[in-house]
């Protein structure tokens, strides 16, 4: 480790003041930069490297053979079900992002502009509290709500709307999306709220004063300025939805198998680590591309508030 004892700061023979100051700066830099660099290297660079290494190899029964073949990557795009499942995952991820934003926006809006301070704190807490409970528990909860013996069916039968339990609620893309939206909406709420909170009230006053109706204030001022928050939230909810594997297992059916489930199967059941690594890398690359685009858009719509 660097030595930060006091005598480090004493000038050595013939050293100019500027040089000494720069030398001290370098030491300080090293002190702060080293730990994150180390962390990044050990937990990011090395795993990515290993992923890449595995993806180029092949497996014979359970024995891994290193190699330099792009075969696995070709398989991702040419062999079913990989590409199809990836697209389905993207679709469900997109649904998650869109519905989370739609559901989260009004709440974020209320919190940012209308809630009194005490209510704001309370609602904020309510948004976060579900995260104290395990994600698994919450996914299970939806199973008991949507199932044939579940609350929804019981209510519908009780109300005389249907005669026998409906099976359309569970084990399909709808139930997976619903569960994902339910679980990840807080991320949309918080990121939209953070953006709305930055909008100066004087802009709203100015719009009202110019003769705008409440709807016009929203459409012409508030909404355009909140787009970066929507995008930031959407990136999070999309990523979480896209990579999820619990909801498909618990409330999904064969039609809603997602890419993470495939990867888990390849790793744990088929022992095809190279294939799993290749899919992982493709997903990561797609994710990077998506985040870059979202980032670019966020900057385009982010104005100095």
């Amino acid at each position, binding site marked *: 480790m660097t030595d930060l004892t006091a005598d480090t700061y004493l000038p050595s023979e013939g050293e100019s003041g500027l040089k000494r100051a720069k030398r001290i700066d370098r030491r300080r830099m090293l002190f702060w930069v080293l730990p994150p660099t180390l962390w990044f290297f050990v937990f990011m660079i090395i795993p990515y490297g290993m992923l890449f290494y595995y993806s180029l190899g092949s497996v014979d029964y359970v024995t891994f053979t290193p190699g330099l073949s792009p075969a696995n990557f070709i398989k991702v795009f040419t062999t079913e079900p990989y590409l199809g499942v990836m697209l389905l995952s993207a679709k469900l991820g997109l649904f998650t992002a869109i519905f989370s934003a739609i559901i989260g926006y009004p709440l974020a809006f209320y919190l940012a502009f209308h809630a009194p301070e005490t209510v704001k704190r309370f609602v904020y807490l309510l948004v976060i509290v579900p995260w104290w409970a395990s994600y698994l528990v919450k996914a299970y909860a939806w199973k008991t709500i949507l199932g044939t013996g579940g609350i929804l069916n019981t209510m519908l039968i009780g109300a005389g709307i249907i005669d026998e339990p409906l099976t359309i609620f569970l084990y399909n893309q709808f139930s997976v999306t619903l569960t994902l939206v339910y679980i990840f909406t807080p991320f949309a709420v918080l990121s939209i709220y953070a953006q709305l909170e930055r909008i*100066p009230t*004087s802009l709203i*006053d100015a*719009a009202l*004063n110019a003769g705008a109706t409440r709807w*016009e204030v929203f459409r012409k001022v508030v909404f355009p300025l909140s787009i970066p928050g929507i995008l930031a939230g959407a990136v999070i909810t999309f990523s979480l939805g896209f990579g999820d594997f619990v909801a498909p297992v618990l409330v999904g059916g064969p039609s809603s198998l997602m890419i993470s489930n495939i990867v888990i199967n390849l790793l744990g059941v088929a022992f095809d680590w190279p294939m799993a690594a290749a899919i992982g890398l493709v997903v990561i690359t797609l994710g990077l591309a998506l985040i870059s685009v979202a980032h670019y858009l966020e900057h385009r*719509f982010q*104005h100095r*508030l």
Partner: protein
Amino acid sequence: MSYIDIRKLRKSYGAGLKPAVDGIDLSIDRGEFVTLLGSSGCGKTTTLRCIAGLERPDSGEILLDGKDITYDQPSERDMRMVFQDYALFPNLTIADNVAFGLRLKRYRGRYTPEQVKRRIGEYLDLVHLADHGGKKPHQLSGGQKQRAALARALITEPDIVLFDEPLGSLDANLRKAMQIEIKRIHRQLGKTFIYVTHDQEEAMAMSDRIVVMNGGRILQVASPEEIYAAPNCQFVARFIDRANVLSGIVVSTEGGQTQVRLGDGQILRCEGNGVAAGSTVGVMMRADRINIAGGPVDGMNMLKGMLAERLFLGAKHEFVVDLAGEAGQLNVFEQEMPDGLGGEVMLSVSPQDVRLLAE
């Protein structure tokens, strides 16, 4: 009946809090330039926001041409505001900011797209921003932003324009230039301007009438000249150009003159009477009306004091003269520099330039 009538306006921002506006009565004529003047927290901005409909008063009423508009929606009022922090929409260009009002439902159909375009040009010209229409607000300087905000407020030709400390965040030279600009536009358009500021110099320079406020109440409403020469209370006297205000006791009133004994025993004669002998009063003297004298001058009040401080102000010098005991200090403006600090000086002031103020 006046154009705008404010009656018993009261507004508090929470139960138990001192009201921000505490029963204000004010009438404003069409085409007037009226300034609400006071230090921060005096209720001037709240009053302005009530007029604009951005705050709902607790009680009282605001009449426009005799019609009660107290609780109308802000968008229903034909008045536009220029905000202290400009409040330009950061997602729109300057031209789109200026045109914001014209493109609202309220004004839809009133102008053809060509007319809208022409008006944007006209109003950008009016505020000298013709070359900046395509820029975003953050690319403009503070003064330019404020001019854009002004154009946005004027473009729908409102009958009333409200200004909430619009020049507060500009530097001194720019502020002066903008004051002249706003005055020019007021003369050119002949609309009613209601202006809020804490800067008494700005208020004096621009207004037809000044409304001096303190603690949510109005202290005095008068023309700048009258407010300067004849403030109606000590607060107004001190607030407007830092008048010298000393307190004293009336010793006698005779022959249209009142004699007041100051804290250090010196006697000051002033024009006017009506205050009973023995009562405590304030006496006001403007710094530019006091002279440093070599010796006694006929018909003038002579005051002795000690020269405590000297400030060079460019066009003049300001001297601070301490009176003996607890009598207080006087500020004196002079062109010439008297002898060194710490010495005794003699001041002369005409009885006509000394005003009696209620305590």
